[in-house]
């Protein structure tokens, strides 16, 4: 009475590859946006601060799944028609990027004012202060919360099921269609695979933090 695990592996593997692809692309988009909006909200120019704050407030307030539906189903009516992959990556990237921006902002402002003043005293320029003094110290602070955020990102990639992008979750549903009787085992296996990927993410995050914080 054991389940035909082996028959499921090819499709689950295909699904996992798509899930990882969506996760990686969304991670790139979200990290770029986090840096832009995070640093933007600290910039000298009020306009930049305003735009960054507006982006963070807006995309933290909207529901990711509703945003995904809007991007995939409603945008074509504005002549912007994205493929499932692009719609998923854009929605997840925008949403997670807003949370990432908050992490960047709080980590940078947590670096003590004294460091900034020491940089001024040595006549370092604004950019030099940010790149050589503030960011390296803020980066260490960012890694743990960003690790958790990437796990949130991985979890939200499962939402591409709703726009029928055949990621891990959707392939599992197709498997369920073919192996209905084994549904509990399929979903159990699905949970396990997501757990394994999440554990890899938190492992990488811990290693990265240890490497960056050698000076502590």
């Amino acid at each position, binding site marked *: 009475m054991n389940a035909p695990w082996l*028959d499921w592996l*090819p*499709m689950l593997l*295909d699904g996992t*590859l*798509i899930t990882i*692809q969506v996760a*990686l*692309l969304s991670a*790139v*988009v979200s990290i*770029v946006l986090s840096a832009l909006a995070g640093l933007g909200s600290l910039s000298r120019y009020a306009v930049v601060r305003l735009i960054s704050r507006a982006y963070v407030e807006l995309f933290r307030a909207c529901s990711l799944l509703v945003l995904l539906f809007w991007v995939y*189903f409603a945008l*074509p009516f504005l*002549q*912007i*028609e*994205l*493929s499932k*992959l*692009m719609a998923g*990556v*854009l929605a997840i990237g925008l949403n997670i990027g807003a949370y990432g921006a908050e992490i960047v902002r709080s980590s940078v402002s947590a670096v003590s004012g004294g460091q900034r003043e020491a940089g001024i005293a040595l006549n370092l320029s604004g950019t030099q202060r940010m790149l050589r003094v503030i960011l390296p110290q803020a980066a260490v602070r960012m890694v743990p919360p960003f690790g958790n955020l990437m796990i949130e990102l991985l979890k939200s990639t499962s939402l591409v099921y709703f726009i*029928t992008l*055949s990621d891990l979750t*959707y*392939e599992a*549903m*197709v498997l*369920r*269609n*073919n*192996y*209905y*009787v084994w*549904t509990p085992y399929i979903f159990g296996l699905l949970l396990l695979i997501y757990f394994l990927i999440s554990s890899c993410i938190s492992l990488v995050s811990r290693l990265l933090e240890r490497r960056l914080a050698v000076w502590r």
Partner: protein
Amino acid sequence: MRKAFAVLVAVPMLLASACGNNGGDTDTLTQAKKQGYITVGFANERPYAYKDENGNLTGEAVEIAKVILERLGVKEVKGELTEFTSLIAGLQAERFDMITAGMFINEDRCKAVKFADPEYSIGEALAVKAGNPLGLTSYTAIAGQPEVKVAVMAGAVEVDYLKASGVKEEQMLQVPDQDAAVSALQSGRADAMTMTGPALQSRLEAAGDSSLERVAEFEQPLVEGKSVRGYGATAFRLSDEAFQAAYNAELSKMKESGELLDILQQFGFTEQELPQDATAEQLCGG
């Protein structure tokens, strides 16, 4: 789609790809011949169009389309998985070029898409708990018992037939896919589940659950007095008359040569499910 997962990186790429394929007004068939492949929309429903165990696209509608397209000079068929309720929107938005999901022809849909002639005609079917404790033999019987719940696929024609037979909204458990319907019946969340005949047959076999049973003497629902025997067909964009005509020509050849019946039988259909000589135009109330 799984094979060519080109890894697109960085935001500019996203914007570049945002222009979408608006596709000129050249006829979809000629374009497909030039490209060597055509993309079809399907909703993963057995036995019409679904992915089998090793992920290949098959099913009654798909196999028929493959044969006809081969003869029309289009070698490869790529599947674009879409939820049933979004198939027509997807076709209009040119996410794919034809719908091969064994979609029923009805007036509303004829306004949005151009149907080829029907490939099969089938009635509805009903599954209940073994022994049919509630004696449900038709949609009107369900309407008669207000606390009875029936699982039905969201957006499917059965929803309209149920409403036409007096079944209220609250009695219907609208589910996203076939398996959810089976689960609803098995778990007792619903007292019955309804699908087209072959689909119900294949789901019951897959579930292999002796506590479920297909209602043998099920009376087909009546809509405006007419039996609502459904006709499933391939669908094209309204602008694709030429494609539809070419497709119909090949389809009628398959009917005469008996090829159509061979394919249908592979998926659990019988002679009764042949479309006879019904045409899309009639069914659209033309």
